[in-house]
């Protein structure tokens, strides 16, 4: 009897967790299972969906969302939101395009200026959040509205239209196009180069989160801000850096869009900010911070891409897409919650 209780006491301190349970506790597990189910589902409905051209087709939107979802997930793990992430894409593309086509700036220089503008937006978001202690939801809601107005207002003021055109005629366009909007041929099928960037950014983001001290700090400030400060984690610096990472990604996506089409709409990126958050949440990020996965967010983006194109291939009305997305989000959140609770309870 005595031995039994001693053993139990020891067990309580070091709960050993089985492999299955440990797997269940991985934040990205739900997203991976969901992605497989959705792939199989649409593959059965449509042959084109699983053909190389079909795959290339749904990987493209997945890549655009994924490049944003990675830093957005990092920011959420750090305990914050960025509602301005979508319209910042528009700001980035518009800045580059206007400076090149209207003010004859060299494309590469214009892109550098655009990057500075974006980093400035991220810094402002982060600085205000850190300084005021207000919820990032409110701070970035105001940047979101502000940028949305600026994007349309400035575009109309300068071009009298709600879009900026003519980027394709500028010098250096071909070089930039190759880097940002080119294609890679694999087995005779052209894939957008953005897919490659997406994979690289996911790998980089995941590495930073799991293998660097910065990643530790991200988990720490999202998990327990007070505790992190008490042990000397540079919380303000970490938060601002995260916001700047999001806006840097917005710069990348915004310029990719402008260069690919040669023009950009004043409303580009509007409404996308929620999609990034959806991808991160499907990928296992908690809204409360301190928990989540970069790879999960990327898989969330993949689910988004597959569903958006899969509905078209299945011959359904694409108006239904948002409904599916909503249902999937709810399902993912419930499944994540259920799995996590189950794993934690059986772990006790």
């Amino acid at each position: 009897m005595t031995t039994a209780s001693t053993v139990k006491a020891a067990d309580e301190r070091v709960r050993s967790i089985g492999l299955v349970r440990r797997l269940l506790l991985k934040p990205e597990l739900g997203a991976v299972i969901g992605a497989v189910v959705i792939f199989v589902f649409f593959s059965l409905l449509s042959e084109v969906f699983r053909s190389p051209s079909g795959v290339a087709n749904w990987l493209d939107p997945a890549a655009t969302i994924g490049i944003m979802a990675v830093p957005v997930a990092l920011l959420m793990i750090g305990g914050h939101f960025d509602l301005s992430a979508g319209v910042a894409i528009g700001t980035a593309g518009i800045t580059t395009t206007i400076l090149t086509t209207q003010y004859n700036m060299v494309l590469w220089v214009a892109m550098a200026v655009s990057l500075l503008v974006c980093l400035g937006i991220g810094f402002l978001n982060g600085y205000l959040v850190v300084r005021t202690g207000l919820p990032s939801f409110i701070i970035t809601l105001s940047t979101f509205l502000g940028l949305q107005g600026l994007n349309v207002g400035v575009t109309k003021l300068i071009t009298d239209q709600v879009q900026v055109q003519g980027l394709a005629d500028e010098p250096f366009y071909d070089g930039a196009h190759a880097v940002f909007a080119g294609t890679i041929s694999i087995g005779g099928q052209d894939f957008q180069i953005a897919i490659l960037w997406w994979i690289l950014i996911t790998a980089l983001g995941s590495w930073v989160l799991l293998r660097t001290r910065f990643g530790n700090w991200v988990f720490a400030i999202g998990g327990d801000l007070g505790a992190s400060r008490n042990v000397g984690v540079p919380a303000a610096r970490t938060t601002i850096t995260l916001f700047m990472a999001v806006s840097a990604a917005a710069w990348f996506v915004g310029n990719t869009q402008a260069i690919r089409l040669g023009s950009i709409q004043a409303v580009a990126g509007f409404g996308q900010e929620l999609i990034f958050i959806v991808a991160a949440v499907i990928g296992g990020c908690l809204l409360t911070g301190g928990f989540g996965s970069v790879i999960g967010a990327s898989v969330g983006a993949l689910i988004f891409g597959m569903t958006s194109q899969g509905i078209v291939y299945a011959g359904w009305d694409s108006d239904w897409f948002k409904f599916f997305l909503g249902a999937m989000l709810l399902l993912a959140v419930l499944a994540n919650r259920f799995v996590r609770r189950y794993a934690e309870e059986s772990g006790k």
Partner: protein
Amino acid sequence: MSELLVMRGIVKQFPGVRALDGVDLEVRAGEVHCLLGQNGAGKSTLIKILAGAHLPDEGTISLAGEEIRPAGPTDAIRLGISTIYQELDLVDGLSVAENIFLGHEKASLGFTRRGETNAAARDLLARLGHGEIRPTTEVGRLSPAGKQVVSMARALSHDARLIVMDEPSAALAHDEVANLFRIIRELTAQGVAVVYISHRLEEIREIGDRVTVLKDGRTAAVGLPARDTPTSTIVSLMTGRNVEYVFPPRPDRAEPGPEVLRVENLSVPGVFANVSFSVRAGEIVGLAGLVGSGRSEIIEAVYGARKASGRVLLDGRPVGAGTDRAVRLGMGLAPEERKAQALLLDESVARNITLAGLGRYSRFGWLDRRRELADARAQIEALDIRPGDPRRPIKTLSGGNQQKAVLARWLIDGGSSSSGAPLRLLLLDEPTRGVDVGARAELYAVIRRLADQGIGVLLVSSEVPEVLGLADRVLVIREGEVVHEAQAGELDEHRVLDLVMAAHPATQEKEDAGE
């Protein structure tokens, strides 16, 4: 032995409160220095200044002869001062090793060196006698005792010269305390100084070398020998007050009122167990105990705000979970966090007073504002709430007047709540927190008046004199158990403090004989 840390004349002012008013502390290398004082004496402010969380307004700190001024946690850590807070500063989502080295990661070029980190964590844990805790385990999955060990390992990882431990034994079982003491002795043998805060006198006698006592933000005694100073001396140093309390006289009742509240075997696992008591109409029952003893949680459980096993009966009717049922039966709560939990800060005094019974003033969905205002005015006058303008936003009032407004709520119409049930039991959690000493007497009088109307009052307060002066009957709570129950007149502050701190029985007897 030389003085490692010398703090002189430390003053720290917070809005409205002088938390520290000239505190001195001297700690030698290699000693365990105990810091004693009642709740609110300034212990936590003092250690936060040491930890770099607050800057002192006045006074000097020197460490090993050099004057220091830690301006942030990082500063303090770099100087060799590690603090283990009671509410362990750990991030649940990170692993044990990551927590130990959080903020000073073993990294090159920004990349964490996992193998090295884990190995170093394993060494530290082994040194603490807890080699069974794996460095890769997520901290959220550890027991409180396990987390305590991780916090300790973190302090060690900094090569600290001075480690501050705020009630480190609070979460530990008996055998684990022994292990904690072993670790502390090892540390002091290596010349590390430990500042040890605990309410358990027997621990201080066992592990401590010297004792400094704080009282009302001042140093009451410096460097007393921990083993030989009589308990009575320590307790009177902690309690000797300059502040006079004025309590309303207890009414002489020939026969006690009927029982209003009956609590049977109320338990919340890990917080308190098998608590049984009753409150009669017109009676004030006080719960005395330290912060964390479970007294506030008992009130919450009675009110239905906390899930508990056992039975709570109000006028013989069972109160289940859920505060709405408690209110419907006639319970009222004036919570501990007045500003956050009891007041609409931007609303007027009148609205705050009539809040609980707005239903009374509504006719066909419209509020009868004139009647609402008139009722509020009557209460403002009756309780002498100042300034007396019912339209004034309540946040502009002082703490004492705010608290009076909270109490006034229950006085309207003899305290009938919105549902029409008359108030039967009032739960007061720290009713005088943040209230000026001068204004307290008036509050005490109001509380007594409520009782005289036939309401039962259950009172929780950290201030022992308050419980003794105001209550008719007192329950002493220690670590989730009722350890003593008596009429307030039969107890004094020494006795209650002895009970809540559980002075060693042997010492107790000796001193009783000596007195």
